[in-house]
């Protein structure tokens, strides 16, 4: 039987289902980043010293957001997103500090794909060194280099609809990891005697990561899916 005839039979039948047509929308990239970084760098004119600090990440973003896949620039906003990160640094010499951060991320997205609900949780850590620049009492500038490692789990539930025999649901579970090198530039602004705001501009260069067979990796904790990112933290200096 040829395929044309089969289609004619199929489209005329009464039991059949919703068409499997999927729709996505393409995006525009932000071009402001280099200009704003340049502007920000030009505002730095001073110096400060401390033996170290501890802090907590308040906010952050990977610049272009997370997308469903490489060919689709529609950003995923995530129905639920939690990111907790603490960080600290300790002076090890006159011009160097060792910097460590650990974090936990959890995100959820219903209908990540047309018939797939997605959940993600994972931990990550960064360890590296930062240079202590000679700025004034209010500003500190710390260019640094860190090793980044993340271990995370993605879980999802797919549903194939069955109008006659019932729906079929199944689970996807997979453990993943990522390892990268992360040059960053920390800009710290003292608010009070020991309290400061710190912004970290970072470029996360992925060296290796899991490449699972099923759907693409959606989110890497503490990093997102884009190489360039920005964090804002509140730190206590000592």
């Amino acid at each position, binding site marked *: 039987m040829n395929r044309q005839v089969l289609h004619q039979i199929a489209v005329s039948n009464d039991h*059949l289902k919703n068409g499997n*047509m999927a729709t996505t929308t393409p995006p*525009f990239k932000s071009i402001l980043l280099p200009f704003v970084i340049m502007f920000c760098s030009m505002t730095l004119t001073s110096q400060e010293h401390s033996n170290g600090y501890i802090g907590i990440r308040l906010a952050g973003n990977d610049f272009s957001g997370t997308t469903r896949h490489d060919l689709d620039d529609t950003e995923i906003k995530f129905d639920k997103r939690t990111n907790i990160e603490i960080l600290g640094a300790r002076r090890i010499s006159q011009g160097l500090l060792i910097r460590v951060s650990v974090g936990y991320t959890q995100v959820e997205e219903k209908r990540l794909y047309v018939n797939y609900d997605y959940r993600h949780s994972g931990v990550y850590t960064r360890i590296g060194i930062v240079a202590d620049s000679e700025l004034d009492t209010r500003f500190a500038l710390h260019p640094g280099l860190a090793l980044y490692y993340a271990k995370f789990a993605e879980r999802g539930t797919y549903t194939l609809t069955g109008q006659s025999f019932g729906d079929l649901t199944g689970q996807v579970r997979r453990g993943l990891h990522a390892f990268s090198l992360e040059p960053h530039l920390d800009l710290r602004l003292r608010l009070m005697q020991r309290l400061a705001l710190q912004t970290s501009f970072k470029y996360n260069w992925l060296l290796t990561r899991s490449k699972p067979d099923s759907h693409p990796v959606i989110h890497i904790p503490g990093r997102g899916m884009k190489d360039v990112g920005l964090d804002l933290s509140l730190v206590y200096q000592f």
Partner: protein
Amino acid sequence: MIMFICTFFTLLIAGDFSSCGGARTVACEDRDEPTSVVHFTNKTPDYWRVLAVGSDKSWSGHFDHVESGTYTGWAKALPVSIVADTTTYIFERAGSADTLSFTYVRDIRFESPDCGFTVTLQELRLTEASTFRDVEFTVHTGTGRAPSRPEGLTTAHLPAASFHLGNNIYQITIGDE
């Protein structure tokens, strides 16, 4: 300090530019119950109703007469269960019934971000429960890529809630009995 905070939020917002643009459409394999086409080659089916084990639905016993090139016969599209590895149809006629039962392997996998998870059936085989013996299975695969519409089919034949061209078709040919 104000400049510092403004700079941070400017950068944060810069990362949140989202988009607009034209939609793109893709064809997908089955993400719901696949379609079988039961095809009688030599005799006009005289059934008045079709039932399926595991479903509370029933279908008319009417089969469409189809003729294309060297092919003639009577055919009807029916759903295949995705919650079991066996589908059994019961073709009822006055005073008796025929049974068509077949097994298969369900291959459920992630097809693409646009399509999500889809199912294909493999290794279709007749079971002993069938009253038909001369049965042949043929799989007409949907490519998952945008198909060209067969000649003769217009958009009127392809409403939104209908069979989609990317889907597979599982043809079950029943010959001489």
